């Protein structure tokens, strides 16, 4: 992106860089012009990278001690907790790390929704991001199966059984997924294999995600296109690196709080009971980060319908850039959409909450209302509001918030306050 071509100083470096321009890449990454008005919601990209690396490193160590066998898995996890040096720490970082990963990714996604980061020309970044999110859910689900506790086993049973809703071939597909006629040792083995594979697929997609980001450059809270580099940008290093480091440290304090002081609060106590195919837990619930989708699944009385709706809830996000008809990116300047955005946030939180409750009575009603709103938001609200909404005046640049309606300093200040 930088205007001037990077030239290494030493001869050796130049020789190497001519053959593999790694140093040019490094220079690009440090010089990368970044909007200077990015707020802290923009620090979650760095935080997510940290989460992924943490999961991979702790996961590799855990895999050295874990045994993927139905008779031994539970005991091997206890072996890690009791006999492996700092095994408890590594496992708690890994299990809570999954939750922190999802916490960060949800903030990252909602940031994108608020500031219109999925809109042209960033559609490909958005779609790659959604693919990462899908793989994250797959990895997290399979990881939760590995300790082979009661929730592992019954969670796996419920989720794999969803595929049996597919007409004609459903049962065959389910048997094929299991590698047996029920969730059993072959299922555990393949889940372990895939659980080890998926993070590296995610890593590859993260590289593409960042690459695609570096083509148009970052969106920003004002949501306008900016010249790069210019007065509106700062070099990524040191300005953004130090800011990301600060945000990451705050995140790590919260992370450490969970790991050291309430390491099991986000899990389910039933998962410390070894898997027993003959005893079904009273309530089978997935991990908290999958609950909104679980609520959507259960809000439909028909199994196939529920499965279709649940998958639609995710896949509808892939066409979001084309459902949103607004020419303005940032919700800061979209008074109507902004209200709907917060309704969506509340809606998803509510779905998550009712997903943890039994599917009956008031909870079922709330789940249905929440599901209907979720889809209405994307199918109706986004296209219609985009057309009808009268947006607020937009500044011409970040440094000089001269408004399209004419230069009025008080308005400019108001814009800055909002951002």
């Amino acid at each position, binding site marked *: 992106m930088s205007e001037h071509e990077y030239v290494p100083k030493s001869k050796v470096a130049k020789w190497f860089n001519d053959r593999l321009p790694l140093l040019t890449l490094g220079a690009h990454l440090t010089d990368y012009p970044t909007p200077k008005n990015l707020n802290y919601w923009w620090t979650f990209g760095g935080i997510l990278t940290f989460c992924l690396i943490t999961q991979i490193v702790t996961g590799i160590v855990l895999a050295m001690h874990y045994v993927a066998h139905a008779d031994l898995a539970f005991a091997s996890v206890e072996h890690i907790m009791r006999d492996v040096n700092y095994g408890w720490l590594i496992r*708690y970082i890994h299990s809570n790390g999954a939750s922190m990963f999802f916490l960060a990714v949800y903030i990252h996604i909602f940031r994108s929704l608020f500031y219109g980061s999925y809109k042209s020309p960033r559609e490909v970044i958005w779609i790659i991001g959604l693919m990462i999110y899908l793989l994250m859910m797959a990895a997290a689900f399979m990881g939760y199966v590995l300790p082979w506790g009661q929730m592992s086993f019954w969670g796996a049973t419920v989720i794999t059984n969803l595929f049996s809703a597919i007409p004609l071939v459903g049962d065959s597909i389910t048997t094929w997924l299991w590698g047996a006629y029920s969730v059993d040792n072959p299922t555990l083995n393949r889940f372990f294999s895939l659980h080890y594979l998926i993070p590296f697929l995610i890593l590859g997609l993260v590289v593409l995600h960042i690459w695609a980001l570096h083509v148009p450059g970052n969106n920003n809270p004002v949501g306008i296109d900016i010249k790069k580099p210019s007065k509106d940008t700062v070099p990524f290093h040191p300005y953004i690196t130090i800011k990301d*480091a600060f945000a990451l440290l705050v995140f790590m304090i919260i992370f450490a709080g969970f790991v*050291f002081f309430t390491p099991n609060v986000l899990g389910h*106590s039933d998962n410390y009971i*070894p898997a027993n195919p003959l005893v079904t837990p009273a309530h089978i619930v997935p991990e908290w980060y999958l609950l909104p989708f679980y609520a959507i699944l259960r809000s439909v009385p028909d199994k196939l319908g529920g499965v279709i709706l649940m998958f639609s809830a995710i896949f509808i996000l892939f066409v979001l850039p084309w459902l949103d008809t607004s020419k303005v990116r940032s919700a800061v300047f979209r008074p109507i959409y902004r209200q709907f955005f917060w309704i969506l946030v509340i809606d998803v939180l509510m779905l998550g909450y009712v997903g943890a409750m039994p599917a009956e009575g008031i909870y079922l009603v709330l789940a249905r209302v929440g599901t209907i709103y979720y889809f209405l938001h994307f199918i109706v609200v986004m296209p219609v509001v985009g057309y009808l909404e009268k947006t607020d005046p937009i500044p011409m640049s970040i440094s000089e918030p001269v408004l399209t309606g004419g230069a009025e300093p008080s308005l400019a200040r108001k814009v800055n306050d909002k951002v």
Partner: protein
Amino acid sequence: MIKSNIKLLVLSFLLLISLRPLQSAEMVDPIKVDWSFKGLTGTFDRASLQRGFQVYKEVCASCHSMQYLSYRNLGEPGGPEFSEQEVKAIAASFEIEDGPDSQGEMFTRPGKPSDKFKSPYPNVQAATAANGGAYPPDMSVLVKARKGGANYIYSVLVGYEDPPPGVTLDDGVYYNKYMAGNKIKMPNNLMDGLVEYADGTESTVDQMAKDVTTFLAWAAEPELEERHKTGVKVIIYLVLLTILVYLSMKKIWSRIDSEV
């Protein structure tokens, strides 16, 4: 604008959470005990752990296994911290099956600290059959495996009552106020004076229940004390580093006209 929206968000979320009491009225909340191992710097009461082990050994162990613990754990820091001699003596008091020897025969020998706790039954089926069709769960991680944790285990131990009128119980089923569904197949095994504590503590039902629950809490989380200690250090370190990085950030960003 954004701030007021976040307030609205928090409010509606709190409203949702407050709906919670609507569900599951059939279970009584367990008794809240002020355990010494609660809180950010909580540690186990060493004497209570040792007494708890005695209750486990003399009462619980006749039906419940603790297969993930080894005798050596009893002497490790953060646990009951029996002396090396005591651990050896405890281990040696059990006959452990070992083998096969060079003749291919299994044999028994006195236990060693490295042995796992001896299980009362050879397998789950035998344990189930011997206990009226209810498997006495392995107690290694029992405290982590029950909603309510230590409070719940303690409550069940002291929660035996005569069934209320209208409730009839089958043979070998007992009424317990805190058990899910109120029916439990474990009889009330604790009675005042059942165990003769080595340290002279009076062995009331309440005392024994607290001691054995403390022991089980340690068994489920033997790393708890180290975890708490390390956690405090880690958080202090991170907070200091965060302050330093924050100041560096302010300094770096002061070079340009933008706020951070």
